[in-house]
């Protein structure tokens, strides 16, 4: 096994860049009167959540680190730290990110952590920093296990994870329209990621990519940003608080309230915890599939257009889990 490598703490070094880029975006919006919106308390909440997320990483990082190092101790493989190993890992880790992110939107337990990244009705560079404080509790570090067992060192995992997050910072903006066609074809861009933050029925559960948009195209979750439909940012049910604690924990509180209601079967309780967001035992809420089906009932001409596949069931058959 190689010695403990010493990778730079890229996220910390990126902090001055984040501040400068936010000021530049704000200046651009003020001067040009286009390219996005800012609101004081919304931005403040996002920035506090960003700082809190870093603090959470410092306080609870030992859990993930300990888990990864335990795996590293048992694997006989070591791919080293060559530039090729780093590039290969960057690609594979981005695939891992795609699936964790997809789980984050399809499994309520993981959504409860990720939701606060989507809880702003704005889309600007501060939104990029609106990160979770509860990621450790989702146990999604498990998805990193195969990469460690394949011989990638845990320090490389954290280094590349930081690079992935830094890449995603600049795509949280309305100030950039579309990038050159070749770039839009391969990379995640502001346009692709605006779709991901849209609460429009068309844009729900789309564009989970971190760095490379190719994963969405491979796994059938890619939806292009349409000139005819601007993304409407935020949650299907937007929160009404700027309190960072409430923004971080609101979905966890809802989840535990739902799971602990009296009179539910064990399967229903599991549905509230690990089913898709919007699951309800009595059909009183809509999952994203239900929302899309209802939209198609109101707008049948949209069937078959991006975001509304032909396979979507009619609204009357929409997928509420059965009691």
């Amino acid at each position, binding site marked *: 096994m190689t010695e403990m490598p010493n990778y730079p*703490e890229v996220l*910390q*070094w990126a*902090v*001055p860049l*984040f*501040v400068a880029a*936010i*000021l530049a975006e*704000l200046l651009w919006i*003020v001067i040009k009167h286009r390219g996005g*919106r*800012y*609101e*004081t*308390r*919304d*931005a*403040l909440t996002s*920035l*506090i959540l960003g*700082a809190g997320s*870093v603090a959470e990483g410092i306080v609870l990082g030992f859990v993930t680190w300990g888990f990864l190092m335990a795996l590293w101790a048992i694997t006989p493989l070591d791919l080293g730290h060559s530039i090729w190993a780093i590039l290969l890992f960057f690609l594979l880790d981005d695939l891992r990110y795609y699936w964790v992110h997809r789980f984050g939107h399809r499994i309520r337990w993981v959504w409860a952590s990720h939701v606060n990244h989507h809880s702003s*009705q*704005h889309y600007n560079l*501060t939104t990029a920093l609106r990160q979770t404080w509860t990621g450790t509790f989702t146990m999604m570090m498990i998805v990193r296990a195969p990469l460690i067992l394949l011989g990638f060192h845990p320090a490389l995992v954290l280094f590349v994870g930081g690079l992935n997050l830094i890449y995603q910072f600049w795509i949280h903006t309305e100030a950039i329209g579309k990038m050159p066609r070749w770039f839009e074809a391969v990379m995640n861009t502001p346009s692709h990621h605006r779709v991901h933050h849209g609460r429009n029925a068309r844009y729900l559960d789309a564009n989970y990519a971190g760095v490379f948009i190719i994963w969405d195209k491979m796994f059938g979750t890619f939806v292009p940003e349409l000139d005819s439909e601007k993304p*409407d940012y*935020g949650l299907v*049910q*937007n*929160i*009404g*608080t*700027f309190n960072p604690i*409430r*923004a971080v*924990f*609101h*979905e966890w*509180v*809802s989840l535990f309230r739902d799971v602990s209601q009296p009179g539910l079967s064990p399967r229903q309780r599991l549905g509230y915890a690990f089913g898709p967001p919007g699951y309800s035992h009595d059909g009183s809420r809509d999952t994203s599939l239900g929302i899309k089906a*209802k*939209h198609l009932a*109101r707008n049948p001409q949209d069937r078959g257009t991006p975001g509304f596949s032909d396979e979507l069931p009619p609204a009357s058959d929409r997928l509420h889990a059965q009691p």
Partner: protein
Amino acid sequence: MPLQILLTLVIGGIAAIAMLLHMLGKSALLALDTNSAKEAWLRHFPDDTVQDLLVAGDGHAALVLTDRGPGLLWSFGADTVARHLRDFTYLDGDTRQTIRFSDYGAPRVCLRLTATERQRWQTLMRGT
């Protein structure tokens, strides 16, 4: 990076951005009128049919009567938030009224209704 420098950058950066935004007038509450309130409600609840709508005199809230019962729309920074009026408590006051929801993500809304508005809103909020 030394922790002291990192903390200074983070705290200083957050404070500077927040102060700049406030000085640029980005703290103003959204003002609603009948049309924008109806549009905002349907943005939150596209399946609803809006039957009637009362915008508060200060323009920061609207009582919306829909086919699914009454609801409250309110200014939330530069945006809006909406909830149907189910499982809520209304606390009356001469100059300020509070609606508390059983919702950790939207715990309370403060209204500033005139005496006339208060009476009418209270009746309609009960769905009668």
